[in-house]
């Protein structure tokens, strides 16, 4: 077991890749075997992720040097800087990996019946596994260029999956917008990597952080990196592609795309906290994140009110919810370097933002899945044409209610615990942020109630006489996420102590991140 955990980080990336390369071959022989392969490999990866999380909570940051004579040998003997690619897994990466493993497993199970009537299923599952591997790679890598490579894997497979239903024109348009935006963003990342490489001749994040000077060229690199990752995460001034791409994808993929935007957000945090860290002009960058986060919250929720398409409506809410996380972590970034303020409210604000990532990663895919279930049964995404579906689809309606209550921050549910953490801590930084947050929360509740009313309530419509409950595997996929919500609701303090605070501390403690690479070499 301990031996398995030495290689835990790379196995979590390599097993989905291996399964992805096997899937087309197995799929030619038997569809059933292929489905089993997909679900079993993802379950095994989820198991590995949780085992590695336990290992990290005991032994600290997990470091793995690829191709060296020993995994801990980060720099070659008798040399000062790392040469090889190094995986570096700390509390923050682990939190992201845990939610990614749960959501990808739920999405795969949901897909089993959601796409059962389509052609090209083997290739669909291949791309799904590749997207899983790309996401894990982004979360685990400690190398800038490797981050770019895994970002590309996740976005190319995502784009192909968005355009999966080729018989509709809008899917092609959404996929094309997604891939153009990803290509531009990732090339900007590559240019910034070139700027950093030119000055320091290093690609490892930890080693770069030790020597970085914050020269003008570094500032330009920071701007390029932040612009690229915030575009990919769907921050407001450049968010127009976001609902177009998310609303047309198969629902299981939309759920996973939400987590890839969280992964891009994670990359932005990693750049700010671990790469630039104490060198950063922290209040300025923090305020930039806060202002655009506020804008995202407001624009997202106001645009959502006017939407008729159920998936589009939820996509705009995703933009709005992402704003909470930018604000929470942005406040933490603004007081970075000021130990007193950090202890009074900065750490709590960051914990709130990160906790909201976890909660959002549970309820937003759940809501997208219920939207997909409605589309699966009625064949339309238009809310005005639906009605009275609660009579036929009881489970879907119940799961939708859980998601709605959670996203609006109704007290006992998990959305409330993270929002109250953000409100309380951010209030000490600037009261306007809290007030805006509460207003946006109320608007969210109002619009979701309206959507629930038009889809599920009212008399049964005659055209939906044949609608039944969705197939079992779709219910199971949604139930996994609902179970996550219930777990966080019941044990919020356990989750905060065990997963959220380690993640926030991992971001704040830049020295620990650097030491894992350059210090303490045996």
């Amino acid at each position, binding site marked *: 077991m301990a031996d398995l955990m030495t290689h835990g980080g790379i196995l979590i990336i390599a097993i989905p890749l291996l399964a992805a390369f096997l899937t087309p071959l197995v799929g030619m022989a038997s569809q059933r075997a292929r489905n089993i392969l997909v679900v079993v490999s993802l379950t095994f990866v989820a198991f590995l992720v949780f085992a590695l999380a336990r290992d990290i909570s005991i032994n600290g940051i997990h470091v793995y040097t690829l191709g060296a004579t020993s995994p801990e040998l980060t720099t070659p003997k008798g040399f000062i800087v790392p040469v090889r690619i190094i995986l570096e897994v700390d509390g923050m990466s682990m939190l992201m990996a845990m939610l990614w493993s749960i959501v990808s497993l739920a999405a795969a199970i949901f897909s089993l019946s959601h796409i059962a009537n389509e052609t090209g299923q083997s290739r669909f599952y291949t791309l799904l596994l590749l997207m899983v591997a790309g996401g894990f790679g982004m979360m685990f890598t400690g190398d800038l*260029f490797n981050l770019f*490579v895994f970002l*590309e894997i996740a976005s*190319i497979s995502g*784009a*192909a999956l968005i*355009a999966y239903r*080729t018989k509709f*024109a*809008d899917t*092609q*348009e*959404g*996929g*094309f917008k997604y*891939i*153009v935006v990803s*290509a*531009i963003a990732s*090339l900007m990342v*590559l*240019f910034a990597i*070139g700027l950093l*490489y*030119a000055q320091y*001749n290093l*690609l490892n994040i930890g080693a770069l952080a030790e020597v970085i000077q914050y020269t003008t060229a570094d500032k330009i690199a920071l701007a390029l990196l932040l612009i690229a990752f915030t575009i990919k995460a769907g921050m407001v001034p450049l968010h127009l592609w976001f*609902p*177009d791409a998310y*609303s*047309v994808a198969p629902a299981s993929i939309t759920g996973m795309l939400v987590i890839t935007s969280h992964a891009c957000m994670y990359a932005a945090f990693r750049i700010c906290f671990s790469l630039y860290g104490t060198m950063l002009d922290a209040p300025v960058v923090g305020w930039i994140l806060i202002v655009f986060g506020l804008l995202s919250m407001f624009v997202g929720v106001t*645009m959502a009110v*006017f*939407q008729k398409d159920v998936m589009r409506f939820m996509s705009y809410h995703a933009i709005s919810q992402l704003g909470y996380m930018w604000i929470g972590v942005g406040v933490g970034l603004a007081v970075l370097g000021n130990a007193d303020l950090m202890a009074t409210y900065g750490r709590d604000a960051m914990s709130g933002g990160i906790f909201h990532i976890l909660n959002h990663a549970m309820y937003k895919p759940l809501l997208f899945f219920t939207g997909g279930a409605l589309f699966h049964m009625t064949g339309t995404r238009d809310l005005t044409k639906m009605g009275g579906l609660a009579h036929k689809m009881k489970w879907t309606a119940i799961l939708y209610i859980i998601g709605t209550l959670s996203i609006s921050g109704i007290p006992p549910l998990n959305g409330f615990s993270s929002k109250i953490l953000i409100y309380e801590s951010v209030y000490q930084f600037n009261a306007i942020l809290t007030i805006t947050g509460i207003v946006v929360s109320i608007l969210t509740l109002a619009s979701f109630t309206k959507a629930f009313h038009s889809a599920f309530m009212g008399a049964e419509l005659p055209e939906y006489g044949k609608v039944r409950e969705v197939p079992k595997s779709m219910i199971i996929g949604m139930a996994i996420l609902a179970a996550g919500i219930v777990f966080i609701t019941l044990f919020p303090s356990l989750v905060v102590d065990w997963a959220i605070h380690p993640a926030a501390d991992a971001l704040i403690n830049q020295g620990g991140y650097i030491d894992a690479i350059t210090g303490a070499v045996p």
Partner: protein
Amino acid sequence: MDYIPLDFPFLAAALLVGISFYIIIFKKNLTKLIMGVAMLASGVNLFLVSLGYRAGANAPIYTDVPGGPMVMSVPQALTLTSIVINVAVLALMLTMVIRIYRHTGTLDSEKSRKMKG
């Protein structure tokens, strides 16, 4: 040539990136948009590979050429990776444009747009 004045390759890369952003922002034709992305990729690749150049040095291969300094090898490897990645991206983009053309009969991004607001 020992020294190329004015950092010419770097400037060329920056200008190539600038021109491609002009194409991406202002051109309405989807094929031209793809050409813009391809040019952007070329600009970034040119920038990366010229980072590793050392004046008067050999290619980083141990051959029978008389010894001397070698140019840096990591940027070359990074460029190679990036070229292959961009080929992959372009193939997928072209496929989607073909599909869009089949559906809408036009390559104009204003006319082929279905989703608004």
